[in-house]
């Protein structure tokens, strides 16, 4: 088998969520004989349980395939999978850097969607060759001609010979394989140049240390090569190199154009940041590859162990997750109500959800997450400025001159029928209308600027429900704007519960306070005494609800045979209590902290 660069193709697949990316990837692997049809588990690439359940791809997974083309030559395909959700734009850009081309899938029944656009533009920005594919042509509602026209009209890509396929049935997938060869360029770069390898992902292996997923741009790396990175001074001896097929497979060397992994007994993840460039010590490259724009966390939330004694376990779990998730930020936090924990930064709500679930599943830890917040700029009367990610840290009102909050540029794509309801929603969320573009007769793009703190609650859900699921949404942070913000405190039995405090716009404080108080009334179980729930802004009570005391919890009878039964019942109740946190004298179920999120229904 020839292993020259001319026969290598590095590509990724980008698509709107659910347009069939993982299914096509599975089919490509099957057709190239990487996996037999029989052994194949659905959607191989989505290896994390969580990914499979949610139908999303989160981490990057490179796969190497061999394909014997119709021209008689054998080719090596390196497929680097990309996440499909807007929260993970950062990770998409990471994988794109390692490729020469991108397969752009469009669902023939839905046409071009927001994420199709966002990912296509990302690919174009990274100088990738776009290879359109029209999927799901087997469905009765497929409109492949229209999808092709949308690709040309909206994206300006030539879709005239785009393969029309069904990834599900395997129909016409061979055409995709052939076009990968003709449409996607072979990698450039030279083996004789000094080593330049782009780290596009990494994870920690207990035996081998940090495993770097790399794309070799120039040069060659093999076992024994002394390497270093541009961001760190430390040197390492390569202990193993290999490729993914899709499991890790040891090789003698990796050379320019190839995608694979490097292990070098690297103990600390800080020494090999994703986006950094690896070079050799003996013959170093002069300058690094252009790395990635660092993804900034946008949404911040407190993460606390349900059982306070598990603080160190939680710390270990978060640090391990951070290894291959640079976008996750962690810093120690301390709450009067919840004890010691962490303030974590996430790319968005989905990212937050995913991290939360991974902590619970992969590390078997029960956690409490507090309502998410964004980072605010506080300009104080003494002329200093501070950034607040935790409402608790907000200085007293008297010390604040004014505050700024992050705003986003939102693009909402929708059939024209739903323009009215969407405008209403955006207005309710303090949005400012910017523009409306008719993309074609069935699709409108609405542009708004919206405060980020209005988006992190249930904006996406509201959007979907108002448009019967038709609208899609994409955003980017556009900056900060001055805003009239206040801290909304919740008092339980007269005491402020710091973990429930949020920062809101002044005009919405009353409404939010009332909603949260109502919600808390629903989620806090009745206890032996009456519990007043109050919402307060600057010491002034603006809403009040009451959890009534319960009246009866005793078993009516307790005679000879009832003793054991009653004891068992109480033991069960005790277990239930362990899921509660005591805030002063009040017991609160752990989900209460996050449930206040779900109050944001615009009624």
């Amino acid at each position: 088998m020839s292993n020259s660069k001319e026969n290598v193709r590095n590509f990724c697949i980008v698509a709107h969520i659910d347009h069939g990316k993982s299914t096509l990837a599975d089919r490509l692997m099957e057709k190239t004989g990487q996996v037999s049809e029989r052994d194949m588990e659905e959607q191989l690439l989505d290896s994390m349980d969580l990914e499979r359940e949610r139908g999303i791809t989160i981490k990057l997974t490179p796969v190497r395939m061999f394909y014997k083309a119709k021209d008689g030559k054998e080719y090596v395909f390196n497929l680097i999978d990309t996440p499909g959700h807007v929260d993970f734009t950062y990770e998409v850009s990471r994988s794109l850097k390692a490729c020469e081309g991108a397969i752009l899938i469009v669902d023939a029944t839905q046409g071009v969607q927001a994420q199709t656009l966002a990912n296509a533009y990302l690919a174009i920005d990274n100088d990738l060759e776009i290879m359109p594919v029209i999927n799901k042509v087997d469905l009765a509602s497929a409109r492949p001609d229209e999808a092709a026209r949308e690709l040309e009209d909206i994206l300006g890509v030539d879709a005239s010979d785009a393969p029309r396929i069904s990834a599900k049935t395997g129909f016409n997938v061979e055409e995709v394989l052939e076009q990968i060869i003709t449409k996607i360029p072979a990698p450039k770069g030279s083996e004789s140049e000094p080593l330049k390898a782009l780290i596009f992902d990494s994870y920690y292996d207990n035996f081998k240390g940090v495993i770097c997923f790399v794309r070799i741009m120039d040069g060659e790396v093999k076992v024994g090569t002394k390497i270093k990175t541009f961001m760190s001074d430390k040197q390492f001896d390569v202990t193993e190199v290999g490729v993914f097929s899709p499991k890790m497979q040891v090789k003698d060397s990796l050379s320019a154009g190839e995608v694979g992994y490097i292990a070098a007994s690297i103990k600390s993840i800080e020494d090999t940041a994703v986006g950094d460039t690896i070079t050799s010590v003996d013959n170093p490259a002069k300058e690094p590859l252009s790395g990635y724009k660092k993804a900034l966390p946008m949404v911040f939330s407190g993460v606390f162990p349900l059982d306070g004694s598990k603080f160190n376990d939680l710390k270990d779990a978060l640090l391990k997750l951070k290894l291959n998730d640079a976008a996750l930020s962690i810093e120690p936090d301390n709450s009067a109500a919840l004890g010691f924990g962490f303030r974590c930064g996430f790319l968005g709500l989905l990212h937050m959800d995913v991290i939360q679930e991974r902590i619970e599943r992969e590390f078997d830890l029960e956690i409490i997450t507090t309502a998410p917040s964004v980072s605010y700029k506080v300009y104080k009367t003494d002329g200093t400025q501070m950034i607040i990610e935790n409402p608790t840290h907000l200085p007293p009102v008297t010390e604040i001159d004014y505050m700024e909050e992050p705003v986003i540029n939102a693009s909402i794509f929708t059939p024209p029928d739903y323009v009215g309801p969407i405008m209403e929603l955006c207005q309710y969320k303090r949005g400012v209308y910017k523009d409306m573009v008719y993309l074609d007769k069935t699709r409108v793009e609405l542009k708004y600027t919206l405060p980020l703190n209005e988006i992190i609650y249930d904006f996406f859900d509201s959007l979907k429900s108002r448009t019967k699921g038709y609208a899609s949404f994409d955003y980017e942070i556009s900056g900060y704007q001055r805003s009239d913000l206040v801290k909304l405190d919740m008092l339980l039995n007269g005491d402020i519960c710091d973990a429930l405090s949020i920062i809101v716009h002044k005009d919405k404080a009353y409404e939010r306070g009332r909603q949260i108080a109502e919600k808390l009334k629903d989620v806090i179980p009745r206890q032996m005494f009456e519990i007043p729930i109050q919402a307060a802004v600057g010491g002034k009570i603006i809403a009040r609800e009451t959890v009534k005391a319960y009246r009866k919890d005793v078993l009516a009878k307790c005679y000879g045979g009832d003793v054991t039964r009653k004891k068992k019942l109480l033991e069960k109740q005790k277990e239930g209590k362990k899921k509660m946190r005591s805030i002063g004298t009040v017991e609160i179920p752990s989900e209460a902290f996050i449930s206040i999120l779900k109050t944001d229904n615009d009624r």
Partner: protein
Amino acid sequence: MAGIYVHVPFCKQKCTYCDFASFPREIGKAESYFACLYREIEGRAKQYPSKIIDTIYIGGGTPSVVDAKFIAGAIRQIKKCFTVKKDAEITIELNPGTVDQDKIKTYKSVGINRFSLGLQTGFDDQLKRLNRVHTAKDFLLCCNMLKGENLSADILLGLHDQDLEQVKKSVDLALAGGVKHLSVYALTPEVGTPIYTDYLNGELLSDDEVADIYDGIREYLKEKGFDRYEVSNFAKDGYYSKHNMNYWRRGEYIGVGVSASSFCDGRRFTNTFSVDEYMNAVIYNKSPEISSDVIEGDDAKFEFIMLALRTTKGLNVKEYNKLFDADFDIEYKTVLDKKMRFMERDGENLKIKDEYLYVQNDIILAFMKN
């Protein structure tokens, strides 16, 4: 001192709320059942020869539904096999409508000196809905036959569309019958009973409504000279149930018959719930027990607390310290700090405040160690 409980697993018809071991269709097996029961009594006496019996309780089912000679036989057998104190309290449960003068005569002849009547409610439409065998009038007739005896009655709370006035009238009926002891139980709908369906459909009273009626009736009974001495039990002075008090003191008791539970020498054990299985076991000299647990350490301590705090006298701290060679106030300092506002201390006795007796689970839970 120890009590003996005798279970009679037969009745005329199942009440809609009943989930006890009671089988109307098996009443034909009564004769052989009692033969086995006598044998178990003999066996238990050999197993626990040193126990001195001061209370006997015959419950069910409906003990009065079977021939009185079987009941008399059981009492005689107990007296023969165990040491029974002369002034022992011997109670039998009766259902109005299943009793006659002859039966009462037989009961009294073997020393039964306390009669617990299943009244439940004084309203015939409610009785019918519960599938009870009797009417309010039957109850009065029964009381009349038992004039001058030590009588107790059961009353249920939380029935369909029940209100406080109705329960007061039911209490009045019981008092008119000469009852000196009342058990006022909140109905507990158990899975598998017909009334559970009514519960699921929201036809029964809510816990809050039950608590309101309970508070009202507690007040009413106080006016009538009844003390509440346990969550669900009220009595005139001198008429507390000794047999039941023994349960709450975590005293020993031996249960014989189908589904009967025992607590002896630190072991809790329960017999099978099936009449046939029970008889087979006894005939073939096998144990009829289906569960057996030795209770020790923190478990034993927790039982003691859980049971004692059901009573209005509360827990005797000195007794606890002696029993468990412990110092209660040190052992539970953090619990007491947190929960003392719901409790009160009267010398050696720690009790739950009157107004919190009906919401005691939360307090008791705090005493449970992990």
